[in-house]
């Protein structure tokens, strides 16, 4: 591979991984607190919609990035209350929120803008090179010539890690995911902790959606997340429920998608549909490889009930 091509592919990897990373970090909060994050797909979509609409109406992309997490958190709140308070099945509630999000965003889009399939067009925020660092050969263009939101996503891994592993709040969150009864006995409220973790995770997933709509595509279209939330979910598992692991997982899926674009461009005798299957098959293969060795939070999936 030529050096230029390599730089292109690596840069695209980071760009494509960013929305996934936000969603994976959000899903991680939810799963570490003991709730499967099947709904991140819907939360991403809500964030993409909320972000795009807010940006369009205010004429300011920054406002879009502020509203998107609210939209994601709102859906997270619904999932949190349904699963933690009312003990709804986590997997199916997640699926339901995904379909709800698809319907709501599509409905509201038409309600707000009329017509059959309106398209929101926006100005994509510019690349902000990091002074000096961006001049390093190879590393510079790959790592340090991105729009701000991409730096933010990767830097976010650090506070999320610190929060989960080094703070009291993170300890309580993890305890609720491992043994809610013990956490309850120790004086915390597992139901509230779960609701907060899912809503917080929803906010991050919403940011991921906004990145997709406002940064990558520059528009909102129906169902535009198109399975990315599920890939983020796979990244969490492949990354063994750690922030850094999830980040590496997202980069891996980003790399596959970046290569996919390349291969389609090269006109190889492989059909584009087969190439599009690769991320899903790869996710499946990786999960099968990680298999039983991965230890998921012990209380995940189980509703907590006060006795």
């Amino acid at each position, binding site marked *: 591979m030529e050096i230029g091509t390599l730089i292109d592919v690596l840069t695209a990897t980071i760009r494509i991984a960013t929305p996934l990373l936000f969603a994976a970090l959000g899903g991680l909060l939810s799963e570490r607190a003991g709730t499967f994050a099947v709904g991140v797909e819907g939360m991403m979509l809500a964030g993409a919609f909320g972000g795009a609409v807010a940006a369009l109406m205010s004429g300011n992309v920054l406002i879009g990035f502020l509203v998107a997490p609210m939209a994601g958190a709102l859906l997270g709140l619904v999932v949190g209350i349904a699963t933690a308070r009312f003990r709804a*099945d986590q997997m199916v509630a997640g699926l339901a929120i995904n379909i709800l999000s698809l319907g709501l965003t599509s409905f509201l889009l038409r309600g707000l803008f009329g017509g059959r399939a309106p398209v929101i067009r926006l100005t994509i925020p510019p690349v902000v090179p990091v002074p000096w660092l961006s001049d390093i050969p190879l590393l510079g263009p790959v790592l340090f010539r991105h729009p701000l939101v991409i730096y933010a996503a990767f830097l976010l891994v650090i506070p999320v890690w610190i929060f989960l592993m080094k703070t009291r709040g993170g300890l309580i969150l993890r305890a609720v995911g491992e043994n809610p009864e013990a956490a309850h006995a120790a004086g915390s409220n597992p139901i509230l902790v779960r609701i907060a973790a899912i809503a917080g995770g929803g906010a991050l997933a919403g940011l991921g959606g906004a990145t997709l709509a406002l940064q990558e595509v520059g528009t909102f279209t129906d169902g535009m997340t198109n399975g990315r939330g599920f890939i983020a979910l796979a990244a969490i598992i492949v990354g063994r429920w750690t922030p850094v692991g999830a980040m590496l997982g997202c980069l891996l899926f980003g790399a596959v998608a970046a290569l996919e674009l390349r291969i389609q461009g090269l006109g190889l005798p492989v059909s584009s549909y087969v190439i*599009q299957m690769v991320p899903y098959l790869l996710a499946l293969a990786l999960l099968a490889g990680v298999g039983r060795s991965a230890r998921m939070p012990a209380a995940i999936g189980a509703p907590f009930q006060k*006795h």
Partner: protein
Amino acid sequence: MSLVAEPVPSPSHRRGIDRLVDALSGSARTSLLMVGAVALALATTACLILLAGTNPITAYGALVRGAFGSLDRVIFGINKATPYILAGAGVALCFRAKVINIGAEGQIAVGGIGATFIALNAALLPVVLVVPLSLAAGALCGAIWAGLAAIVHLKRGVHEVLCTLLLNFVGVLLVSEVLHGDMGEPGAGFPQSPLIARVARLPKLISGTDLHIGILLAVVVVVALHVLFWRTTFGFRLRIMGESRSAADYVGLSVPRATMRVMLLAGGLAGLAGGIEVLGVHLRLIEGFSAGFGFNAVAVALLASLNPLAVLPAGLFLGFLEAGALAMQREVGVPSSLVFVIQGLTMIFVLCAIGIGGAERKV
């Protein structure tokens, strides 16, 4: 993972909604909860319609007329419901055994491919065998697709939700792949197969209308599943598995084997649904024909509170809801994407109802 909630502690410990639900009992409670959930979803959606500037009564009136306004409309709804019933019945059995199969979408997709493949080669087969063989091929392909997910789940310990989910995407892409390859109609502007021969189409139930025999097959299948579930050892095993994995282990029941079987069964039913959709409605394979079906199957199974027989009314409800919503969009301009809103809300309310109610089921 619990679709069936844990045993409920004595009512004195519970408050508010919990106590209200406890006051009702048995299957009356289950039915009431389901109706309540649907009503709540429709009411919430009515607020949205109002916000969009349309009178909800006008909109829902158009929806009901669209679903039941004429014989043709009713038939449209029934045909729509047929694949939901079949796939939903399989999902219900899986969920009952606590095997969360959300892969109906992909299973329907590859089922459609299998059925189309045989149907397109109808000339090579004796006339009477074309339809049965096509449908069988659909069921087989669906079963294989579900079996793949089951193998990855059982052998590698990957959660079945992820296996079935990821294979959905692959299955749907596979339809596009074959349509851009050997099965595609050359020169068609849209990714689709050539029309299948007349002998390969599903016979009509009422001649001169669109009503094909699919619904009849669905009824037969659902009744058979009811018997299977309540009257056979296999059904008993599924029920024990659903209640408690440790109990199943204790009585020496092979959980992996039962998991594999129920997945194959559900996949087969979904594949059959795909075949029926192709041979009965579209008369050709079309790109994206199974979009959303997997979710609908889950919705139907839940609305039926995982009861094989109750899948029939639940499937018809969803079929008519969609048929009505399409008409509503045409008549009063309210987007039919509202169906997703109604479905999503209904499911969330149903899940909460199950969770609160702790619906006790007989084993």
